């Protein structure tokens, strides 16, 4: 499951996997492993040595040290995708997000071409650095939504892959 979470004005991209061993969670690429359990007053999470309680009320998360304003958006649930009838075939649309704002200096992806995981889809210049945006998965390029010279904002969808 992936979603975008903003806590007290700080945006993060979150990926969550539920496994038999517990939960694996990646926040902007930093990985945590732990466990989650429901209790009467909310949810308890253990990512470090201790269980910590998190209460969720509307757009507020209450933790041991205070309350935090949260926003949730761009929810992608892969588990329900593969379960639904429309997506019962193995292919699925995978949007490629810009990891940061910047300027498109080169587009290597062309609609219809086959790419391998790690192939460069486009090059984004930010802060005087050219950053190659790689394909996260093998697949076919279904859409390319930017051209050279475009400015993109963070999390903007720049291309769509049909992953397989």
């Amino acid at each position, binding site marked *: 499951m992936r979603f975008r979470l903003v*806590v007290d004005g700080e945006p993060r991209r979150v990926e*969550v996997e539920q496994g038999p061993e517990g939960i694996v969670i990646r926040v902007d690429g930093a990985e945590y492993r732990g466990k989650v359990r429901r209790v009467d007053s909310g949810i308890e999470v253990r990512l470090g040595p201790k269980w910590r309680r998190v209460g969720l009320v509307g757009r507020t998360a209450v933790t041991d040290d205070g309350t935090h304003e949260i926003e949730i958006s761009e929810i992608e649930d892969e588990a329900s995708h593969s379960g639904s009838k429309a997506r019962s075939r193995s292919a699925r649309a995978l949007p490629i997000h810009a990891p940061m704002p910047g300027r498109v200096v080169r587009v290597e992806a062309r609609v219809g071409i086959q790419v391998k995981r790690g192939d460069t889809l486009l090059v984004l210049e930010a802060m005087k650095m050219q950053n190659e945006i790689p394909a996260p998965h093998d697949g076919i390029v279904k859409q390319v939504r930017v051209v050279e010279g475009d400015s993109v904002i963070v999390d903007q969808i720049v291309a769509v892959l049909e992953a397989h």
Partner: protein
Amino acid sequence: MFRRLLIANRGEIAIRVARTARAMGIHCIGVYSEADRTALHRTAMDESVEIGGPLPAQSYLNASAMLRAATETRADAIHPGYGFLSEKADFAMRCAEAGIVFVGPPPGAIAVTGDKVSARRAMAEAGVPVTEGVDRVLGSVDEAREVAAEIGYPVLFKATAGGGGIGMSRVDGPEGLAESFEAAQSVARANFGNPDLFLEKYLQQARHVEVQVLLGDRGVGVGFVERECSVQRRHQKLVEETPSPAIGTAVRKRLREVAVRGLQSLGYRNAGTVEFLFHDGRFTFNEVNARLQVEHPITEMVTGVDLVRQQLRVASGDGIEVSQNEMRWKGHAIECRINAEDPLRNFLPSPGSVVDFRAPAGAQIRVDAGVAAGSTVPAFYDPLIAKLVVGGSSRDTAVRRMLQSVDAFEVRGIHTTLPFHRVLLSDRDFVKGNLWTTMVDDLRLVGRIRSRGPWEQQIAEIAAAVAASGRLKSGPTVDLMRPKASAWSAAGRRQLLAGGDHAVPPRRRW
């Protein structure tokens, strides 16, 4: 002395230059791009003017727009800072033609040092030891192969027009040479509009040391105690210190004399730095930086000399206030560059909104910052947002103080290199002063970064709770006529919530 100074830069260096200039009673004029309308550096100036669009070529690199701004605001001098127009001989020339003093070296000296082959040749003629290599542009792959075989692998291709670590390519043997040659040419053409390459012996496990020089009228001036800047990534400096833990008194004196003599031979004036590689007890010339450098504060901290003040005095004809005989230095200083980059994701640029910014303070701690809480870090410019500089009576004291200062430094909203510094400062080799230019990769320091700290873990806990609660099934949160919390109100809110028993807001350690 000048009355009105235009500061042709942005961020921390614009603020740093304005601090000294204003203390000297000079009226400071700032410039800003469309993307920097709310930038912090504007608040450090007496006045500021918009000079163009967000791309550097439209604004901070736009010589015509810069000169127009200087003329319209009746500036009598321009301080270029570092980067942007600071090492453009053509710009320095145009300033002179417009009757405005360029606070930096003469255009001729900038031109010689900007061409790496000519700089190498000039230094060799002045008796500065140079790295084994060629003093001419390589005409072909075959010529490169011949030279490389003579010198012995590994070798390093360098762009003659290069700088800032861009356009260098290491070759370990004849088989990879042709490919590297072409790749380096295309990088050089793309970055500098000039594909010319030359070649030097690649020195493994070398240290980067450099000497700050300040030359006044008739080339009389001083050389400072050396800085070591071996902690780099992709040839970009991350941490600098002075003095170098590897250099003793005799070598120190020779380094200084050679650097001063080298710059004097070019007819150089004002502040400049001569960079060397230090290898097997020998040092050889690397390049000249014809400007004030990012890491100049560490030199200021151990010597007490304000380099910007001296730059302005040299440029206005008032002369340098220190002489080599009086020059003293004391203790040790270190600088950590705080960049808006995410070390956990291979230093991915991390522009965005700075939600909170709390810098450490105290004796022997100096923070030159270009942002504050509420600032935006645009994606158009370089990622340096602040420099954390500390001093100590010894290197050990300084390292310890730096570690505490890094712990106390809190930046929210964007990712920074702070977690990298924490790992580096605890590394055994670093603590012992055992430094070399590829140590960040060789020691896999980045792989040792385990976390971004407790606040990030709290975000992960909230995220885990959100995922587990079934909350995602009800879709995204929506804004119903509700104004977005601004960074300022969020900061204020945190101040309130952080209250309670604490006289000062609690600081999270990580």
